[in-house]
Each structure stands twice: as structure tokens, then as C-alpha cells.
């Protein structure tokens, strides 16, 4: 976002654009990354429901797709809550940069 001066800012600290935080990518905070293993996924969507950063992408059919790594902060809630298939988790946490 380009630098703004007081003359160009809206008065009273009003933010005129809804959902503008999407321009601020929080993915750089992450030190561990979730990995989605599609064959173990039962499409329960618990990861989507419990993600605090709205970083689980869901397509038009309501099926989950890969993570949105631009915003995922790597908390690991999805991996812990993932029921997986036959005891095998569909989301595992991996160290970033490996």
C-alpha cells in the first residue's frame, strides 16, 4: 500500500474498503506449515470451520482444496482437529523451509 498523507486519508479514521486486511499477508508469520494429504481427507471440513485465519480454501462444490499459505499462520489447530481416514491424518504439520 502506497504511503498516504493526512490530506488524502479519510476523516475520523474511517476505513472505506471492506475486508481490506486481505492486502496484509500474515503467511510470513508461519514457522511450521500444514500439509494436506488428499487421499486421507474425508471432506469433513472441520479444518475449514476451526481455522482462525480463514486459510482453508473451499471450491464452489463445497469441497476443500489446498491451504491458502498467504494467510495461514501455522497454528496447527487444523492438524490437531483433523479426524483423518482410518487413523491416518489428512493434515500434518511440517517445519517451514525443509
Amino acid at each position, binding site marked *: *500500500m502506497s504511503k*498516504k498523507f493526512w490530506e488524502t486519508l479519510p476523516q475520523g*479514521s474511517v*476505513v472505506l*474498503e*471492506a*475486508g*481490506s*486486511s*486481505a*492486502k*496484509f*499477508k*500474515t503467511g510470513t*508469520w*508461519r514457522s511450521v506449515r500444514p500439509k494436506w494429504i488428499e487421499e486421507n481427507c474425508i471432506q*469433513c*471440513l*472441520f479444518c*475449514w*470451520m*476451526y*481455522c*482462525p*485465519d*480463514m*486459510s482453508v480454501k*473451499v471450491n*464452489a*462444490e*463445497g469441497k*476443500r482444496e489446498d491451504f*491458502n499459505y*498467504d*494467510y495461514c*499462520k*501455522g*497454528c*496447527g*489447530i487444523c*492438524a*490437531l*482437529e483433523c479426524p483423518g481416514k482410518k487413523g491416518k491424518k489428512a493434515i500434518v*504439520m511440517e517445519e517451514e523451509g525443509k
Partner: protein
Amino acid sequence: MTTKPLKLRELAKGEDRFTHGHRMCSGCGAPIIVKQVLMATDYPIIASNATGCLEVSTCIQQYTAWKIPWIHSAFENAAATISGVEAMYKSLVKQGKIEDKQVKFIAFGGDGGTYDIGFQSLSGAMERGHDMMYICYDNGAYMNTGIQRSSATPFGANTTTCPAGDIIPGKPQQRKDLTRIMAAHGIPYVAQASPAHWMDLMKKVQKAFEIKGPKFMNVISPCNRGWRSRTDDAIMLSKLAVDTCYWPLYEVENGVLKITVKPKEKKPIVDFLKPQGRFKHLFAPENAAMLLQIQADIDSEWEKLQKLAAFYGTEEKQ
């Protein structure tokens, strides 16, 4: 407006009204709660926010995570602010200046902005009978400013203003039961919810929006920084809080209390305390009596709640 069906697949196709890019800590419980609340309904919503983690990190100059009209004015007056917005809206509709789109009004506040600082404004708004809903996300301390105790901090918890050490073993006082205090206002709907039980939480939001008048909902919101737990256990801990009856899920509709989720098997409170570093000192041998007291208090509260449900005859409908 018809009530939205709560099917995950259908919900997932909808648009988020609370978006990513907010700067809440990794693994915070509050954004999960806000997302679930806004997802539960298709009504247009206007929200106000008390100062707190949620406010400072979702709305930083030029960046907002909200896709709904949202206002913040001060710490103590989230309820007064939204009651003013609601009164203005009603007046404009009455004057014929705008058409009535069945807008719903929500105030979000943390436990500091609800239990302590915003309490008189909340109590006032409830008493005046505004058509609004107040949602408190209770993380049990002033987490935003560095984990100072609040009146929602549980007995025995270690915070920076009641540090566990040689003098005191954590917070010496009991937490206050705000949900029951709000129920004592005689308002049409009061509920307690947990983000782990999303269906229950969203049902309560839907129910509340169909009721005219002031509503209050208290939601447990794990904070891994303040609770000294791991970043991935927000949902696990809110589930444990319900299973140990530390945070029973119930609602009070027109004075009638009903327990909405009864744990299949009541777990010992130690299961909830153990993963949290703020209770670490309670497991030292000299504090064993405190653990027993916490368990005894929870048992008696749970007993009381069940007796009340039995009194109203709502316990069979589980």
C-alpha cells in the same frame, strides 16, 4: 427470513463476512467465534466492538478484516454505542428515510470490556431493552495488554497482576458468573457457548436473532499466550472446558434454563487445567488443596445447574 440450514458443505460455499489478513495471534480462539457468529445468519449485521484484542488486531488503520459495518469508540461503551446505532436505525425507519432491511445489531467485547470496564454500559443497554445482541469472548484476562487479571480470571490462575509465587498461589478470588448475572436482568435470551461446539453456538445465534429485545451470549475463547498453552489447542481446550463442566453450555430463554449440551462423561477438571501453563503451580504438592477446591466448586455449580434445569422441566429434552 428463513433460518439458514447448518450444514458444513453449504456453509462453506458462502462468503466470509470476517476475512483473513487480521492480526490476531496464531491459534487465537476469538476469530473462530466471530466467523461462526457471522456465518450463522444471512441477516445484514452491524457490529460494534469494545477495545480489546479483537478490536486492535482486526482494524488497523487502512486495514479492516470486517466486511460488515463496524464501529469502535472506546473500551467501556460497546453496548452503549450499538444501542445508539440501533435507536438511530429505528428512528430513520420510522421517519421513512430508509427502508427496513431487518438489520441485526451485535456488540463484541472481550471479558475485560464486558465483565469489568464495559459492565455498566452493558447492563444499561440490556435494561433499556434495545434490540441487540452482546457477545462476550471470554479469554479470562486482559490478554491484549499483557495478561492482567480480570473478574473473569478463574480461581488459582497465574497472571501478571496476581503472579503465583511465595505470597499467593495465583488469583485468590473466584471468577464472577456473568452469564447468570445477565440472566438476572430478565432479558429474553442469555446463552453460554463454545467454538468447539459450533453447531450449538450457531443455533444459539440463529435463535437469538429471531427474538426481539436484548440478548447476551458468553463464549469461551482460548488464548494460547495468556493460558500458556500450545498454539494448536484452542478447540481442544474449549471442548475440554465443556466436558469438565467448567464451561457448561446452556441457555436461558424467557427465564427458563435449559442445558443444551450435556457431556457424555464428566471429566475431572485436572484434564482442563493440566495443558495450561497458567495453572502449572497448582500441581505442586503444597497446592493440592486448591485443586480439590476447584473440583468441588465445579461439582456444586454443575449440580445447581442440573437442579435448575430439572426445576424448569427441560432436562429430558436433551
